[in-house]
């Protein structure tokens, strides 16, 4: 897989913005995650310099929070629920279908950085089971046709 290109200028300007801030680490990480889609491991030392922490400390914070990732993710992050309620309502087949549709295993990202497939223990919307999320949008009462149509929508967007 070709490594994702990073806009170092953008990254540096985000880091620069939070330089010297005492409680700046989390907002800084959030901003990078948001802008770049992940936190490039190579940026850890720059970040730690800016906020006066040891690089290992910064890494510890990144890997502690599920909201931060060190690996580049796709433009669309699909999270299929594997919680109990969804399981009862056929969450497993939804996942199977999703794997087939995207050609991805769990925690994999497509080579063109469009899709990442993840699972979660419960999305907190059990009344809509089976559920999934794409980025920040919830999709409930899933059926194979619904899954396909949701995905088609994103695949179409991609084509644009």
């Amino acid at each position: 897989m070709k490594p994702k290109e990073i806009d170092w200028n953008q990254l540096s300007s985000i880091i620069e913005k939070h330089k010297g801030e005492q409680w700046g680490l989390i907002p800084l990480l959030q901003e990078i995650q948001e802008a770049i889609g992940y936190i490039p491991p190579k940026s850890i030392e720059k970040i730690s310099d800016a906020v006066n922490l040891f690089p290992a400390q910064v890494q510890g914070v990144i890997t502690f929070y599920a909201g931060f990732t060190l690996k580049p993710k796709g433009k669309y992050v699909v999270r299929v629920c594997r919680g109990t309620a969804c399981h009862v309502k056929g969450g497993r087949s939804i996942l199977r279908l999703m794997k087939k549709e995207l050609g991805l295993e769990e925690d994999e990202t497509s080579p063109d950085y469009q899709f990442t497939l993840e699972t979660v223990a419960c999305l907190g919307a059990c009344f809509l089971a089976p559920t999934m999320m794409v980025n920040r949008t919830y999709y409930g009462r899933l059926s194979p046709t619904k899954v396909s149509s949701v995905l088609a929508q994103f695949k179409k967007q991609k084509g644009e």
Partner: protein
Amino acid sequence: MEEISLAINGIRVSCTPGTSILEMAEKNGIKIPKLCYHPDLEPFGACRLCLVEDEKSGRIMASCVTPVAPNMEIVTDSPRVIKHRKNIVRMMIAEHPESCIVCSKGNRCQLRQIAAQMGIGETDLYPMPNYKQLEVDNPFIVRDLSKCILCGKCIRADHELVVVGAIDYNLRGFKSRPATLHDLALEHSNCTFCGTCVSICPTGALAVRDTKYVGTPDREEYTTCGFCGVGCSLLMGVFDDRVVEINPGGLHGSVNGATLCVRGHFAHDFLNARGRLTQPMIREGDQLEPVSWDEALSTIAKRLGAIKKNYGPQSIGLFGSSKCTNEENYLFQKIARTILGTNNVDNGGYLAGRSALRVIHERTDGGCRINSIDNLCGAESILVLGANPAQSAPVLSYAIKRAAKGGTPLIVVDPRKTDLTPLSSLWVPISPNKDCEWINSLAAILWKKFGHDTAFIERFTEGFGPYSDALSSFNPERLCLATGTDMASLERAAELLKGKKIAVVVGHGITQQRSGARTMDALLNLSLMTGSIRTKAGGLYVIAKENNEVGAWDMGTVPNALPGRLPLSNADARKEWERTWNVKISPDQGLNLIRMIEESEKGNLKALYIMGENPLRSLPQGDRVMEAMKKLDFLVVQDILHNETTRIADVVLPGAAFCEKAGSFTNMEGRIECFSEVVPPPGGSKPDWEILDLLATRMGHEKRYGSLDKIRAEMTRSIALYANLKENTNKNFSWIKETSKLRLFSSNGEGTMIPFSSLRPVETEITDDEYPFTAILGSQRFHLGSGTRTAHSERIRDFGLKGEVELSPEDGATMNLKSGDTVQVQSREGALTREIRLEKGLRPGLVFVPTAFHGNDALNLLGLIQLEDTQSQGFKMCQVRLEKLGDNK
């Protein structure tokens, strides 16, 4: 502050608010089991083993992180507490791997101890060992994180004590473990292998890699580290009369507490090296043949006696040792002065720049000696010049880094980026040998900004008028330019230091440089002007390279001073010692190390007695030194290891390493540390003081001392500086006694004023077009001095360091060199061949050459020259040129 009153296990106690329940319990002699608590670390509350119950509220809480509150009724072993505690331990054990049984931590594992104490054998839980990759690739530390209980002690030690930041928690939940950046092996991280985390880890998760000699220690003894001048206290584990393990002494009030550096922790395996000398030997043709002590000593006595008779006392020279004890150095110079009748006695401290330090000694009348490293944490500002203590004196660097992390302004003045620069408020990348000008410019700016301490100046000093006039007439801009730095950084430095006391830390980058004496002079002026001497908020710290560099000088193992650092030229001092020793002392200043070699070359010196030095490796121009020594009629070497110099000796005497004898060292703080024997000297070797004592009687000294105490008693009686040296045991230390007659150092406010010295003129630079680069020589933490002992360490050897020469990427580009290429570095004096490494941040035009590698060939680049010669480039740097020899494949 008002005390808080509460009850613990039914006893009423009181203590200061803010104390944790755990500390309060311990103060009252009540033990609470704990795994993540350590008195030197911030409490963390990770293991929950220290649970106690407050019967009043019914609350169960972790006592290490809960402060005492009024009227608590603490019970440390209620049934509820015990139940919870047992469950915690059961779960820890259930997560633990089976390899527990063969763990090298063995009975010292605290988890196992606690489990045993609580009677937990079977956990009755489903075992869920959390396997992690075993990490064994470096020769120092084995990491088996399957055994980690996530107590976070290693992490806190790494952050809070040694301030390296190599590790922190990574990931979360079941996967969580201490990890380096990018979860790489330790050797690929910035870990310094200080081993502090290993000693503090309560389980077998972090352990020391075994060497040939292993075994669970059958006893443990305290001693003092024999490497650098910090003088850390060590706890040595002994099995079968061999040192098999070393941990920090952890003693209250010691320099190092729970920390050590890689040398102290790991390089002492040289003690068991195959190259140890174990019997006296005498040269028979090409061979050194073992002989009895009797024969060896009488040969020496006879030969030295004859040489003295035939050629006079000045035909004999003696190299004492900055590694041997005070007692031994005292005896050594006494033999030279009273029996042989010569002042030709010196020690390795000469090469460390003793002549530069004499300036301070003379101006302060021997004051300014006591500077406790502990005070650095309370310093108002820290100025580090020409030093990379994280390499040369690591435990000192921990104190500096702790202070800087805590917000103390730290200024690093060094041509190279050092390990301190990332934590510093300002790094001044000065041109080599320009420190004096920079300090004077700084003083000028501070003076302009009213950054001086008027009260201090009036009370303790004289001559400030002319000094400040000189400062006023200065053009700092121009001077600053000449130092290769800019005005902005000078202004910034002045801003950081203004109105503050300054703790100045000086390294060999200053003392060994050509203008070392001028620089020390300027520094003392700056310290006086800012009132930074003799206060905990400031101070003048001079790094000592070797463990007893300071003591050897104090004991008079130098050609121009008697014990107590009294100048030989001082007739009263001579008289004093003549009375004590009951002999006439020659008033003629002796030869220093370098002059002794020169005189051997000329054939004027006929005999040399070397104790604990390896001049073929530690002096510049080893080959020339060898030729000179071969001209001697008689060469005695008393040492612990086979080395370059023993190989050409006529008589070799096997001495003892520091932990194989009793004695005392004086460290860079002015602390005299006493220690007793941990293990007996190997084979037929003897403590060096005993050898000297035996030899002295054979050569006519009226009577043997017979014991260390008798030597010490004579020292204590006759050397005012050492009057505090009591007959103390190995855990004890005392400070040097203040003897300066200056008001600044007197306890009653009386005495003379300390003068400011006038600004010395700028020296002309030595440049050499054919040799366009400036090479800076410096140490790396894995080796000490010339590396004789550390090169005998199995672990250091296994680490496979190459000692690459460092070059700036800019110069690399111009010369078409990349990291891993081989170059020849040539000076007017000699050359060496080495791989290079391009080092970002190094100033173009500079190259860095690490010392102690490859037989310490770095010293080939230097001339065999005296520091005080006008043409001397010092022992720190020289002009070189580079030539590419090979490509990195």
